[in-house]
């Protein structure tokens, strides 16, 4: 494999006594789509801001495009496209102006940026909103504009912090489609998310983070294979009876997880397990067999769900 674009060892960031990122190691290679998966407060955004060469690390080493961000911040940022968690667009300017001024911040020539703005408006499906004030855009449109803005300088790495948080399902799908197209073109993507479906859709390789540390790393499929079973049987006995039943169910499969509203049973064959439950004369109110997901991986690693 070629040299990594980003390489971190023992990367740590503290805010006073609080350790936001706790000695993490990772490498990101050209053309891959790499994700940080974890709940809010896991340290994903902090890690992103260090990789974005804006926030300074407390200790450890990191090299981005072969340079140390502490010494070469502007040179590194020249080749990054950053989509922060909050769309920090310029509310007083129009959609096209937001793209234009951002391009100028990279020192790009006026004529180049003007052409680029048209291209990006098409990419973000915002051609009709060209002269609209940013204030008037919907959440999904603002998000697409922020992504388009990050692409104005044709960056080596596109970094997205929680790209679809706060969007409705339709807006999320439009956005995923745009990101998937970028991925198909071989753009190196770095994504943080607390949505497992997003991580599964967009990431080739993932780091599961919790409380500033890395819990596991691998492709979504490999993580599921390593930390979960093929299938999951979800049964509900009613919130007052779930716990009592869990004790009886525990012996019937590899592993169970009790959640407030349901019991998750990990098994290679969900249907067979369900039959076993009925055979034992236990009658869940509802049952569902599904494939294991990253949510199950996270639950296994941390004992908690991703969205709390």
């Amino acid at each position, binding site marked *: 494999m070629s040299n990594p674009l980003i390489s971190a060892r023992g990367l740590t960031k503290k*805010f006073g006594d609080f350790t936001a990122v706790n000695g993490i190691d990772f490498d990101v290679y050209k053309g891959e789509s790499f994700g940080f998966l974890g709940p809010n407060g896991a340290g994903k955004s902090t890690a992103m801001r260090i990789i*974005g060469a*804006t*926030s*300074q690390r407390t200790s450890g080493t990191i090299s981005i495009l072969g340079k140390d961000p502490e010494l070469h*911040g*502007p*040179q590194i*940022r*020249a*080749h*990054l*496209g*950053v989509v*922060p968690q*909050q769309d*920090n*667009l*310029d*509310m*007083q*300017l129009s959609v096209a*102006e937001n793209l234009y*001024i*951002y391009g*100028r*911040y*990279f*020192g*790009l020539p006026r004529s*180049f940026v003007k052409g680029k703005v048209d*291209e*990006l408006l*098409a*990419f973000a*499906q915002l051609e009709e909103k060209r002269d609209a004030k940013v204030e008037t855009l919907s959440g999904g449109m603002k998000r697409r504009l922020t992504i388009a*803005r990050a*692409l104005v*300088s*044709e*960056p*080596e790495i*596109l970094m997205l912090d929680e790209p679809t948080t706060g969007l409705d399902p339709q807006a999320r799908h439009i956005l995923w489609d745009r990101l998937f*197209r*970028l991925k198909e*073109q*071989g*753009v*190196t993507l770095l994504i943080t998310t607390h949505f497992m479906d997003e991580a599964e859709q967009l990431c080739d390789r993932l780091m599961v983070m919790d409380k500033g540390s890395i819990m596991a790393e691998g492709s979504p499929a490999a993580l599921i294979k390593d930390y979960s079973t093929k299938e999951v049987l979800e049964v509900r006995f009613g919130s007052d009876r779930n716990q009592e039943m869990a004790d009886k169910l525990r012996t019937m499969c590899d592993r169970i997880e009790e959640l407030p509203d349901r019991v998750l049973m990990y098994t290679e064959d969900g249907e067979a397990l369900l039959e076993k439950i009925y055979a034992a004369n236990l009658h869940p109110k509802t049952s569902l067999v599904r494939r294991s997901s990253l949510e199950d991986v996270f639950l296994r690693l941390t004992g908690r769900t991703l969205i709390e």
Partner: protein
Amino acid sequence: MSLANIRQGSLVLVDAARVQSRGAIYVAQARIRQMMKWIWMIIGIAIANPVLYLISVGVGLGGLIDQSVGPAGVDGVKYLTFLAPALLAQAAIQGTMDETIYPTLEGFKWHKTFYSMNSTPLSGAQISYGVFLTALFRAFYTVVLYFGVMWAFGALESPRAWLAIPTAIFAGASFGALMQAMAGKLEDENIFFVVLGRFVMMPLFMFSGTFFPLTSMPFFLQWIGWISPLWHATELGRHLTYGHAISPTMIWVHFIFLGIMLVLGLFFSARIFTKRLAK
């Protein structure tokens, strides 16, 4: 719709060195673009403000004062002529304040636009200088318009009166730079605005020898004038517009005071911006 054009990794495309030398100008260009959205309102205020002030205080109150002091005048001139240079400097200060405090709060707090600027090759210092340059631009045309109104009112007596334009802008720059550094530190702006308006701006305006010579104040209140950029600029402005007598030493003192304030303000605001963005 074509996607073939969304390219990446054009290492040749972006020239970080170019941004390093011109970054502040890019920031100022973007800020001026924003300002242009309000330009008619800004110009309207820049003209209405001196017209109203000079009519009410300069002509109205001034008429009364001129009558009672007789031909000796105030500092040897009509009250209007005496007052106008102070108002000119005040307008510059108000202009730079508006263009430093609000954009700084917007950039760090309200819309966090400084963070998006900082994710490009732009540095915190460049962002602070860019905002400051924009404030200078605002001060420039505010003062020029004000000066035009002063001329129309016949408040200029000396042929080198126009030199009061740069001295007023200088005062605006000094105070604006300091305000920008302060705004960069702010977490809670509500209290700041109350304190600034009532306990800083108001006393400075009233006690900087604006409406009467500083020396007619009790001695223990004159220090307010000494620390006020408005007084220093007013003294220079009076000297230039009608020949108010000041010693060469004092001319230096005024310039050095404003100069130190400017350098400190710029230094701290660049530092504060850089630190806050790197958190």
